[in-house]
């Protein structure tokens, strides 16, 4: 099942991220071709960079929180967070970012 995780506008581009709960992958749309980020069924943190224009690249990050079924999907520009959303990996349901603790990020 495909669910919308986050969407935003940046420098005139509409950026959208979907989560596929079956394959546990992220699909990122900015211009025509979507970028697919496989996460090893939700176990592996990784990122890919999408080149949007000559001077704009967006990094799509998937960060799995250790020992939790929660992951954070982040869009970054030059390494700096543009937008972030935490999700429940199995269902793709959104999780409030304010509920994430430092222990979850570090342990």
């Amino acid at each position, binding site marked *: 099942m495909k669910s919308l995780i986050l969407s*935003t*506008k*940046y420098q005139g581009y509409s950026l959208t991220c979907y989560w596929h709960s079956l394959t546990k992958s992220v699909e990122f749309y900015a211009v025509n071709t979507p970028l697919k980020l496989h996460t090893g069924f939700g176990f592996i943190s990784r990122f890919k960079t999408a080149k949007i224009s000559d001077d704009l690249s967006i990094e799509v990050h998937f960060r799995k929180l250790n020992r939790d079924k929660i992951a*954070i999907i982040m869009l970054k*520009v030059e*390494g*700096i*967070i*543009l*937008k*972030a959303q935490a999700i429940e990996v199995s269902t793709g349901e959104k999780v*409030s*970012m*304010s509920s*994430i*603790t*430092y*222990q979850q*990020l*570090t342990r």
Partner: protein
Amino acid sequence: MQQNITQAIVDWAEGNSQSQENLYVLIYDHLRKLASKQRLKVADKFGQSSIEEHINSTTAIVHEVYIKLENSNGEYFRHRKEFFIMVARTIHNILVDQARKNAAQKRQAELTTLDDVGEESSFEFSEQDQKMLDLGNALQQMEAEYPRQAQSMQLKYFGGLLVKEISDILAISTSSAEKDLAFAKSWLKLRLSS
């Protein structure tokens, strides 16, 4: 949340890799709420058009704050107090700077393209711009003369913190924080009306 942030700042200061991203993730929601609130406040006061161009969304403001934090390399805040003050001030500055820039651009455009521009409309722009400059200057002056009261004010109005949180951060009693805020408010009112 506050303990989490303190720990994240300590780790960042110690140079732990990834601690900066951890801090960003922890403050993400807080920053978005703060940025959105400040954006509405500035739009209310100076008009929606004043912040429409570059800083046109909460996402953009939060991104700008992160860039500013990134550039600071964690040097300025050894603990939570400095961190919160820095974040609050940054959001306010981003918005007011933008509003100021836009007002100046509009004024410039009018001066160069419309010879017969009405006195009233050009006066409106300069008055708005002047108000912002006055507020910025008054805050700076208060910071020099009454630093604690100025910090309380920044934490409350730009940082969106409660009186209890301000008293914790500044290590003062709740009633002192309340008195500081009342003082700062009337001091600014007096300064801006004179």
